[in-house]
C-alpha cells in the first residue's frame, strides 16, 4: 500500500471552486534505465488517476513515464454537495489504490 496524501478543503460554499491536491508515493520507474549489471529495469508506473465526486467523474489523467516519481496532481472542481471524493490510481503490475476524502458544502 503506497502512502497517499490528499488535500481537500473540509468545508466549502456551494458553487465555490475548490482546489484538490494529491500525492502518492510511487517510484514511477520509466523502463528506460539499466541496473548496475546493464540489465534494463522494467517499466513500473502509475498509468491512470481518476477522481469521482459523489460517484460522478470530475477528473481523469493518463500518466506516462515523463511524470516524476511520487506523482503530484492538482486540479479544481466546483463544490456542489456534501459528500465524498474518491481517488483511484491504477498502474503497472496490478497497482491499484483508492482513497477517499469528505467535504461539507454549506
Amino acid at each position, binding site marked *: 500500500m503506497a502512502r497517499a496524501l490528499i488535500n481537500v478543503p473540509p468545508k466549502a460554499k456551494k458553487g465555490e*471552486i475548490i482546489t484538490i491536491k494529491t500525492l502518492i508515493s510511487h517510484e514511477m520507474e*520509466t523502463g*528506460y*534505465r*539499466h*541496473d*548496475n549489471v546493464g540489465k534494463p*529495469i522494467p517499466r513500473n508506473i502509475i498509468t491512470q488517476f481518476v477522481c469521482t*465526486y459523489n460517484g*460522478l467523474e*470530475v*477528473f*481523469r*489523467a*493518463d*500518466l*506516462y*513515464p*515523463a*511524470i*516524476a*516519481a511520487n*506523482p*503530484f*496532481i*492538482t*486540479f*479544481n*472542481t*466546483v463544490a*456542489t454537495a456534501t459528500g465524498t471524493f474518491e481517488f483511484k490510481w491504477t498502474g503497472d503490475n496490478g497497482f491499484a489504490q483508492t482513497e477517499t476524502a469528505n467535504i461539507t458544502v454549506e
Partner: protein
Amino acid sequence: MDDTATRRAFLIGATSLAGGLITVLPVSDARATPETMQAAIKKVIASAPLRKGKVTLHLPPLVENGNSVAMDVAVESPMTADNHVRAIHVFNEKNPQPNVVSIRLGPPAGQAKIATRVRLADSQRIMAIAEMSDGTFWSDEVDVIVTIAACLEDPV
C-alpha cells in the same frame, strides 16, 4: 619520400581514421524527436487546425534537475455545459516518449487549471494542447533548459 614525410603521412592518416571512427559511432538513443512529437500530436488532433492562445503553460525556463519539474497548465474557458475544456494534453520533444500527460475534464472542474511534476530528459520544447467542447484545439509552448537530465541515467 624521406622518413619525416612518411611519419607525417602516417599521422595524418591515423588522425583522419580516428575522426572517421568517432563520426560513425551513432548515438542510438531511443528518443522522441520533434517529428515523433508531431506524430503524437496528430494522433490527438487528427486534421483539426491547431491555434495558439487560450492555453498558458508554465514551466521554469531554467531547470537544474530534470527529475522533477513543476509544471502547470491553465486554459481560459468559462467551463459551462456548452463551452468547456474537454482535455489537456502535454507533449515533449526529447524524452524517450513524446507524451507527458493526458487529462480529461469537463464542466464540473469549474476552472481548467492543473499542476503536476514532470521529468525532462534534455533541454527542449514542451507543448500543451487544450481540446475544447466545440472541437477546436489551442496550444502553448515553452522552451526549457535542463542541466541535469532525467529518464535515461542509471541508478547510482
